């Protein structure tokens, strides 16, 4: 199959990939996790795992995509060998499973943007009732449909005219809005208390293993490392494009956005909250909705005496959140589309199929919050397994060969040293083993029926769904390998 399209420049590639990485996880998940893990005590391991997890895996994803020029299924066949295409299929499944409910969440952000822009959100007395009424009605279906339709339109236009063009508008606008909110937040009277908490380490819990594990999970979540999405965009990078510098820029750029969002939220909440600010940030509510859709709208209402000004800031916040979700959703749809293209299906047919499937499989999450929480849990933790599979593929290929021929090959500006071998060989596998073991042990301790696959959030439901898809993919491995790798020759 001949490569048709490429990102037009280094900056176009960086902005588009930054669109993947900067998602809703940077804006609301990050703040919640910081609050739950002692502020500054969390930030130190979070920075360490940026270096030990995010940067190496983003480099790996870029390199695999650029080398294989195929989606994860074909790429794993080429890198790890013909027996391991199923691992790529698992990565596709994880990203697709997230895509189904992420479209619903994107719809929520759009709904709240409209509500804030019209001024309605600032006139509501009980935001919890407003949220419950919205979530239990049919409106989430409509906004889920609108979100997937917008994304389908963008992906349908292709890489240069679709993804690149829209990312160039959406990502800088998102960053500009966030920066505007950041300036407003840090200039609020009382905001310094929030900033102080954000950076003050609690020396009693800094060595608590849970803080370190949460720091790793947050890095896996918000940088997009191990999702297969960056691997998919890397298919479209030019041969002369660099890997290591671009990957580092994206990882550090993503975490910089998290810091801006975190300081903004902590400053706003501490400045405007009349009750326990910390409790408000750390309580997540269903699917992390508590802070974002219930508490923050209340706070925006206290920004000034003018409903108009408050609505401007609230609508800017929800527009930023919508753009962040939209650019990430685009990459998930592109990943699923590219997978079908690798199987020999045309781009037009693939995108129509993916959009319809995304809408249909997203319906249960749009109608029932329990389904959404279950899927968020199962495929969210599945990302760690995806990261382990990527490290495994590189080990099979040969770490030294991978570093010398692929990462430091044609187009590389900055050469990666031998330290990379140690991280992929030892650090990434150790991180995964420790984290998954901790997760399993914790699951067993908080749920006596941890094995029951019909519980909403326990080890059983995740293991059951992972194992089910893995068995199917292993049985179909040869067929998938032939259809993707051999057809591409």
């Amino acid at each position: 199959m001949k490569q048709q399209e490429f990102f037009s420049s280094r900056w176009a590639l960086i902005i588009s990939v930054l669109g993947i990485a900067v998602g809703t996880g940077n804006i609301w998940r990050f703040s919640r996790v910081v609050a739950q893990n002692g502020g500054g005590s969390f930030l130190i391991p979070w920075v360490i795992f940026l270096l030990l997890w995010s940067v190496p895996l983003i480099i790996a994803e870029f390199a695999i995509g650029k080398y294989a020029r195929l989606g994860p299924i074909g790429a794993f066949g080429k890198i790890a060998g013909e027996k391991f295409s199923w691992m790529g299929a698992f990565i596709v499944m994880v990203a697709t499973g997230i895509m189904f409910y992420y479209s619903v969440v994107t719809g929520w952000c759009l709904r709240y943007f409209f509500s804030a822009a019209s001024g309605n959100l600032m006139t509501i007395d009980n935001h919890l009732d407003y949220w419950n009424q919205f979530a239990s009605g049919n409106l989430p279906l409509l906004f889920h449909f609108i979100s997937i339709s917008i994304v389908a339109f963008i992906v349908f236009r292709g890489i240069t005219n679709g993804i690149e063009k829209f990312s160039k508008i959406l990502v800088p606008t998102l960053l500009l809005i966030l920066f505007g909110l950041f300036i407003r937040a840090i200039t609020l009277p009382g905001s310094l208390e929030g900033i102080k908490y954000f950076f003050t380490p609690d020396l009693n819990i800094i060595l608590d293993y849970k803080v370190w594990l949460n720091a790793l999970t947050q890095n896996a979540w918000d940088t997009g490392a191990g999702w297969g999405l960056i691997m998919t965009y890397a298919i479209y990078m030019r041969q002369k494009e660099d890997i290591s510098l671009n990957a580092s820029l994206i990882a550090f750029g993503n975490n910089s956005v998290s810091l801006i969002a975190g300081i903004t939220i902590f400053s706003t909440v501490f400045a405007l909250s009349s009750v326990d600010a910390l409790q408000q940030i750390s309580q997540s509510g269903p699917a992390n909705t508590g802070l974002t859709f219930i508490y923050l709208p209340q706070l925006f209402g206290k920004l000034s005496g003018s409903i108009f000004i408050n609505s401007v800031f609230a609508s800017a916040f929800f527009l930023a959140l919508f753009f962040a979700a939209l650019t990430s959703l685009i990459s998930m749809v592109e990943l699923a589309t590219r997978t079908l293209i690798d199987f020999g299906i045309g781009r037009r047919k693939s995108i129509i199929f993916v959009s319809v499937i995304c809408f249909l499989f997203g319906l249960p999450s749009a109608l029932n919050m329990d389904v959404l929480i279950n899927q968020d849990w199962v495929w969210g933790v599945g990302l760690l397994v995806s990261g382990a599979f990527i490290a495994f593929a590189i080990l099979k290929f040969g770490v030294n060969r991978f570093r010398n021929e692929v990462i430091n090959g044609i187009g590389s500006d900055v050469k990666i040293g031998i330290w990379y071998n140690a991280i992929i060989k030892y650090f990434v596998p150790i991180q995964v083993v420790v984290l998954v073991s901790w997760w399993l042990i914790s699951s067993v301790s908080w749920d006596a029926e941890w094995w029951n696959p019909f519980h909403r959030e326990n080890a059983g439901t995740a293991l059951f769904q992972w194992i089910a898809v893995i068995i199917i993919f292993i049985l179909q491995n040869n067929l998938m390998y032939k259809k993707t790798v051999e057809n591409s020759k």
Partner: protein
Amino acid sequence: MKIETIITAFVVLTVVWGGLFCFIRKALFYEKKKSLNG
């Protein structure tokens, strides 16, 4: 403000924002070099 707050803020912001600034400068440098070399 406590000393550990200032140290943490300094370390975190220097590594993350400083790292970003450094990588942007490097990318600009290599882009300029490539455009000069045609």
